[in-house]
């Protein structure tokens, strides 16, 4: 990813910011400026809650270039509670603990770093919902 490309995607990556279609009300992620449901222009930002559940998953043992230091890691299709499906890494979880339907929440983590000298890219991952004693 180029510097400009990383920079351009910062809101969707840091905040799960997508779009809402003003015509049919569809919530869109990732943002694409055109509603996939009704094809109307859709440029109004909408920030997703970050809550969802695992729709499916797989564990990567042979990672693509740039992700070697993280392997093995689990990638999931996460169904956001607002509807859209997102592909993302799971974090703070052991591969054998992951189940279809597991509730997850978005966290912002390091996605990749260009060696020791390049920029660090941050973005969304999902983890099992933090167990809380109260609240």
């Amino acid at each position: 990813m180029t510097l400009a490309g990383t920079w351009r995607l910062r809101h969707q990556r840091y905040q799960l910011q997508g779009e809402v279609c003003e015509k049919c009300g569809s919530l869109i992620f990732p943002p694409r400026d055109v509603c996939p449901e009704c094809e109307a222009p859709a440029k109004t930002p909408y920030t997703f809650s970050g809550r969802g559940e695992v729709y499916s998953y797989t564990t990567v043992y042979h990672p693509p270039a740039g992700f070697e230091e993280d392997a093995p890691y689990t990638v999931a299709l996460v169904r956001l509670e607002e509807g859209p499906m997102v592909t993302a890494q799971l974090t703070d979880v052991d591969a054998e603990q992951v189940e279809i339907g597991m509730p997850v929440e978005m966290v912002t983590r390091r996605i990749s770093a260009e060696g020791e000298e390049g920029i660090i890219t941050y973005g969304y991952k999902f983890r099992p919902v933090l167990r809380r004693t109260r609240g």
Partner: protein
Amino acid sequence: MSEVEVLKPDRPVGIVGYGAYVPRYRLPAEEVARVWSGGHGRTPITEKSVPGLDEDTVTIALEAARNALARAGDVDRAQIRAVWVGSESHPYAVKPTSTIVAEAIGATPATQAGDWEFACKAGTEAFQAAVGFVGSGMARYAFAIGADTAQARPGDALDYTAAAGGAAYLLGPADESLAVIEASYSYVTDTPDFWRRAHQHYPSHGGRFTGQPAYFHHITNAARGLMEAMGTRPEDYTYAVFHQPNLKFPRTVARRLGFTPEQIAPGLLVDRIGNTYAASSLIGLTAVLDQARPGDRILLVSFGSGAGSDAISLRVTDAIDERRDRAPRTEDYIARRKPIDYATYARQRRLYVMK
């Protein structure tokens, strides 16, 4: 000591929201001893927190800040006019941690953003500045965050304790706050007890010199200076939190100042999470706020090598009860715990040479 004047803003200021973060992984001190001392010798704590491979000061500061915003409630992000992150482990040497955090919480673009450096006092230094920024009327809200993924030379005494964690405080008008800042006082000298030169991976320290002339001298003088000027005594405080590089130092300084073990126990987290450096005393304060009641008074005293201490006196308000459970408690993060061995620790801290 000559007569001191406490720091007090023109407009009353308080904590509108607070939040903590502790990573999931723990390195038992026994593991360090197993590898480096043949399992002999006493360990300074039970275990320390270790960041995951995808965590750093940015991600830690950010989750703590999000928790603080959740507790604060409906805060207009455009009114957050400063995002300041204190750390000794900023991911970049040049490029602010704070711009990334500010962007992610939606505080950009009309905001100050800056990284603060003063060893373990960087977080409370930012806190003091944020109190002044809000108290002068320049900002409605200002963020002060302490976060670290502290480094230690493998096998060194600090390898047992150098940990990762963060605490974030959104300062704002006192009438919106869950705890009000009564006054503060800072005590700083040039004392070379611990340092890291440019481009060095690990810090150096003065061994026993880090005790009396450094930790104890500065914390004692900051705490006494504040309490004498305010006319308060240890028994006026329900809780006290001191910088906690190990278990022994905060217990000893509390006793010397006249605080009881009960007053410091709720904020003394070092035995279970280690020394989180710029977050150390600030994360102790989050655990205290998690259980404090309206009217409680809290004394917070940080310590940063180099060296100095900030002493801050707080009074908890009625707002604490409804805001506390809007975000995870610090104990929820401490309870989320996966022990790892030293080899896994070395991987997660990127101590293996890969190329």
